């Protein structure tokens, strides 16, 4: 128990001293996770919206597949993307393996189903009278869609928060596609795994606390944002 408390106190000191190595790891984590969340949101939110409001054959099947993909293991995504971007893969010429771009590609694939399914769920629950009202006051299709997204904003924000939470905490994709290269692709989770392997429990705990702190800060930001628009 003393060992755990000592590690925790040392970790707090490390964070408090703004250790450059620690800040570098946090920086890479945030950059990769924010970028992948942004890209997945740009694809997943409109995608989910279109799926929710369009009628096409096998719509239910597509939603079932997206729901299934929520349980996609990160190592499966890692393996899948690796097969495409490794030297022998069809995108091997782009030399993406062990770069932040590769991690972003994997993470985007991982969280698009999360953003899309949560968006489908959020916009499907929107009262149809909003759509009718927008149309009858003369809104075009884009304006109507924007208005519906606005009404579903809390659900969509939850989708984005959940997606961010998934990528900031994942380790499989970052390790397999990023390679845990110090100062380049080392994220909080891959660094924690490495430090644990090395027996550096203090740094591992410090990174764990930092990870929770970052998640907390992001949620605070979204809560503040939701409060601002809740009028």
């Amino acid at each position, binding site marked *: 128990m003393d060992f755990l408390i000592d590690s925790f106190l040392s970790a707090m000191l490390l964070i408090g001293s703004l250790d450059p190595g620690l800040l570098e790891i946090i920086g890479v984590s945030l950059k990769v996770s924010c970028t992948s969340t942004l890209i997945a949101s740009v694809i997943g939110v409109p995608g989910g919206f279109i799926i929710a409001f369009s009628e096409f054959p096998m719509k239910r099947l597509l939603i079932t597949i997206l729901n299934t993909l929520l349980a996609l293991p990160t190592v499966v995504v890692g393996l899948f993307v690796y097969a495409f971007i490794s030297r022998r893969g069809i995108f091997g010429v782009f030399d993406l393996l062990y770069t932040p771009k590769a991690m972003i590609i994997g993470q985007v694939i991982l969280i698009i189903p999360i953003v899309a399914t949560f968006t489908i769920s959020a916009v499907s629950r929107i*009262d149809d*009278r*909003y759509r*009718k*009202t927008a*149309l*009858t*006051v*003369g*809104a*075009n299709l884009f*304006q109507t869609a924007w*208005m519906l997204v*606005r*009404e579903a904003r809390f659900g969509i924000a939850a989708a984005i928060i959940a997606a961010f939470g998934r990528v900031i905490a994942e380790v499989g994709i970052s390790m397999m596609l990023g390679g845990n290269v110090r100062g380049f692709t080392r994220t909080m989770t891959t660094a924690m795994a490495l430090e644990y392997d090395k027996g550096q429990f203090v740094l591992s705990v410090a990174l764990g606390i930092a990870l929770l702190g970052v998640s907390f800060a992001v949620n605070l930001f979204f809560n503040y944002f939701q409060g601002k628009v*809740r*009028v």
Partner: protein
Amino acid sequence: MLYELRNLKKIYDGRTVLDLEQLSLDRGKITSLLGPNGAGKTTLLEIMAFLSGPSSGEVWFEQEKVNFTTGKLMHLRRKVVLVEQQSILFTTRVWKNVAFPLRIRGASKAKRERIVEELLDLVGMGAFGHARAHKLSGGETQRVAIARALACFPEVVLLDEPTANVDVENQIAIERIMQEINQKKGISVIFTTHNMIQASRLADETVFLYEGKVARSIYENIFSGHIETERNGCKQCILQYGLKLGVDSPKSGPVRISIDPSAVKISQSRANASAENTFKGKLIQLTDEQSRVRALVDVGIPLSVLIPKEVFGDLGLEMGAEVWLTCPVESIEVF
């Protein structure tokens, strides 16, 4: 002519909810669509608002045939606006709700501010501009929804049971707004209601709808009953309440009947009343309706009677008085 509907049908899940052979509505008037629940009033309004297409038939608006299949209906929707029975406001401030139609039409901020203020004053909601829209009461919501509809500068305002869910104060306010926008702004107002008195009070014209069709007779005094043929060959309709009415119809078995309130004769003594279909009742309500007086008489069932004012003056009827009603066979429609 504002609207012309020809052979219009709307079918939901194999059930015909609207079946109109021909219906024409004039410009610049207040028109009421009167009918009970399930008469197809809301469906008709949605078609007239170009929000939903008919299953078959033609809709003509301002001499232009509406093509629902192309999806290019925005230019028409910008002339007609629908206020739903339970209007919904966007989850933002009242002011932004009313400004929404102006913003999507590219109106400048100064113009938006001026018009929104004007419209909120018109509906008596001037003090609520910065209120949260979803915190308003039902009546207030309805008034803001009307202001938002007027911000579209429509030629036609369609209102679906505009006073169905509001208190008396808001009902008076909404009826005043409907008359004001028609008289001062020249906007054609078409509203649905199941309130005969409201329809006759507000509307220049009334269309009676029943089971998706334009009813030939007046939608009033509608009862369920059972037709039986007597030994002498005469037919009698026995209402659910035990009242027996002589009818002239080839039908038998379970039916619905309507009794034209303007054809029912009222008198204070049996001697003045003819023998057939004559019932004793108690006068329970009197309502002034322009050139007529509506009397509600309890004869076991509440029966509405329309009396010309000059006749009413001679009758000297008083509330609670015992009266005799005669329903001529011609006043009873069986369907």
